[in-house]
């Protein structure tokens, strides 16, 4: 006979019921040689830069799952509020859910205060949530926006530390992108110059890091206007070999022109065929 139990009122939020079982299964499975499925990461290059009138955020579009590309064109620049956008690196689900929750919270906060939300508010909310979960939520973010105090750019690490800087990069391709920034960043750039700089930084990440690839997305935020350019540049087109860009046909045609092979001799044997029977079967086209 089963025992009856009195249970305490359940709390919402994360449930840790299966953690023990999972760790046991993982250790057992590794003894036999299987490996536990891993979460889909974005293995990314994301970056942001402050220019004269606002912010330019850039991201690549590849999502990886171990050694396989899971999504060739995923969108890593997430909406937080009309004047604030956030790029996310790390575990794809974590960045997605975290930015959505903060976006909702910021909207409620803006309705309650009656003012346009500030980037520092979003930063504070993100940092407190990530610290609460002690880095187990693997979301590394680049947060940028323009509010009443001007343009602001923050980088937020999974454990909850933040940096407020004029140019930031995150993700597995961050070193490649940072190299481009360190070389060519100047204060007070124009919009086109800033877009070109971000495009080059993301391209450096795409070509030099295995975890980043496909297209370059840009988001230009200025006071009162947001330009979400997706894709800004298709750095790697699937199915197009590099040489074809110059008009030289490199792929796929294995037909030879008539006359490629020389004809040595030609013999023609006519076949005499008699017509035995002719039937016509009409199609029913009614």
């Amino acid at each position, binding site marked *: 006979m089963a025992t009856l139990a009195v249970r305490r009122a359940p709390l919402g939020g*994360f449930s840790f019921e299966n953690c023990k079982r999972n760790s046991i299964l993982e250790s057992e499975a590794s003894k036999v040689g299987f490996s536990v499925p891993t979460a889909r990461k974005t293995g990314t290059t994301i970056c942001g830069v402050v220019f004269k009138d606002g912010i330019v955020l850039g991201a690549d579009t590849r999502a990886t799952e171990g050694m396989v590309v899971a999504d060739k064109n995923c969108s890593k620049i997430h909406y937080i509020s009309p004047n604030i956008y956030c790029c996310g690196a790390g575990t794809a689900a974590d960045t997605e859910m975290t930015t959505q929750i903060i976006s909702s919270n910021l909207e409620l906060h803006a309705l309650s205060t009656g003012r346009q939300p500030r980037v520092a508010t979003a930063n504070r909310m993100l940092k407190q949530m990530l610290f*609460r979960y002690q880095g187990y939520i693997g979301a590394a973010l680049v947060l940028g926006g323009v509010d009443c105090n001007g343009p602001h750019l923050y980088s937020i690490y999974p454990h909850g530390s933040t940096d407020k800087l004029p140019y930031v990069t995150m993700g597995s391709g961050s070193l490649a992108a940072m190299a481009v920034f360190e070389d060519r960043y100047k204060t007070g750039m124009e919009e086109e110059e800033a877009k070109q700089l971000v495009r080059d930084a993301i391209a450096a990440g795409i070509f030099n890091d295995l975890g980043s690839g496909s297209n370059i997305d840009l988001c230009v935020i200025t006071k009162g206007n947001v330009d979400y350019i997706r894709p800004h540049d298709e750095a790697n087109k699937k199915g197009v070999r590099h040489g074809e860009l110059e008009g030289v046909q490199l792929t796929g045609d294995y037909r030879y022109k008539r006359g490629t092979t020389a004809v040595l001799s030609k013999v023609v044997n006519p076949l005499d065929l008699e017509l035995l029977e002719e039937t016509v079967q009409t199609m029913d086209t009614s």
Partner: protein
Amino acid sequence: MNTRGLRSQLKDSVPVAGLCPQGSYGIQDSLRSGFTSVKNELLPSHPLELSEKNFVLNQDKMNFSTLRNIQGLHAPLKLQMEYRAARQIQRLPFLQSSNLALDTLRGSDDTIGFEDILSDPAQSETMGEPHMMVEYKLGLL
């Protein structure tokens, strides 16, 4: 503020119910909790488990102590009286109540967190046995 460190929360944590088997039928559920060991019973299965279980409590404690330091003893005392009153407005023990008054007092009625999205208690698949829960609450058990 959610900035309390992990170590300080372990000190005033609610003790994990050790020494009594976790599964239904009263015996050790080997598939889910593995073999019995003292370490298994005492330690939480995930470093965040205790921290999350007591998060709201600790946050309240910290807010009250800050308030006491800034505004004196009466402010947190009055607020705690209101919390106690709000906590008494509940449905029967086995039903989920919305805690609206409590949320409004805490200021969490206009925030969304993981506790609102994941494992919503209003939609849990199991529920406590109604008679036992009421008897437990009335102290008849």
